[in-house]
């Protein structure tokens, strides 16, 4: 199994000091090359789950194992290295660096992974997402759909084992939505990369054979909200 989550817990403090549980996931698994869509209500903890898996946010407890390696409890710098080497991340708002061209955005991911920059692969990835003629364009010179395609290429730059995609089509027009999802799925298939994709879209979800509802995985979402006694 590529990704194994067990008894994962995360809560956030309220201004009153009381902690609100956001995630309490007894078990979640993802196999090598598997593609899963994760759905759920807004504010249900989907992005938080992706952040915890990627190491951007620390969990309160539990276990997250990637290729059998436990990530919970690692130092931040070690989580940074693992994220750069083994995971790719596609954001809802693309999050391209505006000062850098499409090609440089892809190369940056390689730089931060501490690897020798493989320009040929960066170009190949951009060509695969249909941007061979836009490699030297700044993000501001690209359309919304093109920007998201750059972010897909960037997420795959370091040959990750797991691609995390957080509502990658939320800001894309319907015509481009299916093209982007098709692109992500086909590229992950070609590179044998596992995909965990968060979406609200029924159309997007319908393209996946495995659809998980966070509300069903997450015991925190199943607990009734208890008002404080006044």
């Amino acid at each position, binding site marked *: 199994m590529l990704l194994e989550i067990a008894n994962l817990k995360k809560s956030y403090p309220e201004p009153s000091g009381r902690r609100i549980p956001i995630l309490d996931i007894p078990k979640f698994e993802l196999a090598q090359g598997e593609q899963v869509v994760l759905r759920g209500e807004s504010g249900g903890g989907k992005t938080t789950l992706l952040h915890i898996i990627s190491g951007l946010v620390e969990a309160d407890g539990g276990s997250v194992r990637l290729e059998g390696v436990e990530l919970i409890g690692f130092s931040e710098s070690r989580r940074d290295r693992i994220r*750069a080497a083994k995971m790719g991340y596609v954001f809802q708002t693309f999050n391209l*660096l505006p000062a850098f061209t499409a090609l440089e955005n892809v190369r940056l991911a390689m730089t*931060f992974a501490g690897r020798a920059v493989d320009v040929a692969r960066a170009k190949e990835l951009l060509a695969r997402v249909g941007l061979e003629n836009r490699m030297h364009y700044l993000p501001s010179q690209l359309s919304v759909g093109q920007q998201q395609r750059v972010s897909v290429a960037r997420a795959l730059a370091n040959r990750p084992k797991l691609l995390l995609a957080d509502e990658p089509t939320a800001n894309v027009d319907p015509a481009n939505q299916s093209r982007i999802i098709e692109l992500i799925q086909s590229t992950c298939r070609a590179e044998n990369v596992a995909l965990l994709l968060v979406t609200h879209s029924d159309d997007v979800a319908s393209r996946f054979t495995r659809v998980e509802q966070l509300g069903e995985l997450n015991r925190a979402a199943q607990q009734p909200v208890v008002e404080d006694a006044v």
Partner: protein
Amino acid sequence: MNLFAIALRNVFYRPLASMLTATSMALGVALVVLVLTISGVIEKSLERTSNVGYNLIIGAKGSPLQLVFNTVFFLSKPVENIPYSYYMEYLPGDGRQRERERIGGELKDPERSGLYSFLMKGGFAIPLCMGDYVDRFRCVATTPDYFELLKHGDANDLPYTFSSGRNFQDYSEEHGFFEAVVGAEVAESLNLKIGSEIFASHGAESGDTHAQGFAVVGILNRTGSPNDRGAFVNIEGFYLLEGHVAPDRDEDSGLEKAGTATAPERSSKLSKVRLPIEKREVTAILLKPSGFAAIGLEKQVNKTKFAQAVSPIAQIEGLLGVFVRPLRWALLALTSLVCIVSAISILVSIYNSMNERKKDIAIMRALGASRDHITIIILMESLMLALAGGLVGWLVGHALGPLSNPWTMPATGVRIDWLSFNSSLEPFIIPGLVLVGTLAGVIPAVAAYRTPVAKSL
């Protein structure tokens, strides 16, 4: 892409902010360089010029510094005169007797040697008469010894050489006593050539000139010393100009005796008749006594009623210590403050950009950049702005140096070139910039280091 390239791109992505920030640093550094260059030139000039190859200047009682400024730098108002016979007391060996035979005139105890001649063995005494001008330049009347015995240069080992012509002679068949040598700047400014005639004015820059001129027979090569700005005429000819004859004085009161300032009859310009000793005065005597006699001689002379002996080196050192160096430090402190303000502007510029760049930093972190990567990138940006601004400022400072020549040259005689390195502090500018750039980047770097990734994405 390496971290340097990333930092460089970030700097260029905000061209206006980066340029303004670097410009403020450039201005600060340009001011520092300018202060260092000009003060360095002045200090070096004073130090070098005070090491003139003679140990003492003898002149009338008065301000020692004025005597030095007047004699060495051709600045300040001319001082009072002393009798020529007093100058003769310093001539080594039997110089006093030989001088009397050469010039003629009345002299007390003509057979004896000079009072100080025993301290002058192997040394020399050169008389100077000052007070006249050639155009705006000082007219210095002296003997040919001035260019034959004195040297110049940092080590005071370079003989005076002529770009054209020769030294003036005591008497020449062609021009009689009326020959002159001019410094390089005088020749250049007044467009003088060999054979040109210069006319000394009556003791003021704009005064009427004497009717008798001096033929330019030599033009000095540039020396970087005040001599570049001097018009040197034969002292024998100078004495023969109208109004340069000293009157007789009452021995007790020192008052002038009316009608006694009369020049001897001369049949023509080439006449060999000289002004007699008793009608002559000198403004200063450049003295090089033998061995270590200078200290004793200085004390002896200063005990007399009407003359003083001044060590130019000591006077200049005193001036440097009391005035020039403290002033330079004060100016440096001020200009350094400008640099610190510039550094703060770098800090503010980068720190302000942190807000709009929080997301970029979070993206880089999400891509795998460590906090250390981000810190290094921000510090590099700060360093780049400081160094780029500093380098431009350094070049501008050096470029502005020559523009100050119209003010510094007349005072120092030294021309500032495009790349004059005149201060021992200048090598510290680049390390200083690295330090300032690093310090300016620390606070923004810490802010970047602490950027919460998940919240900023």
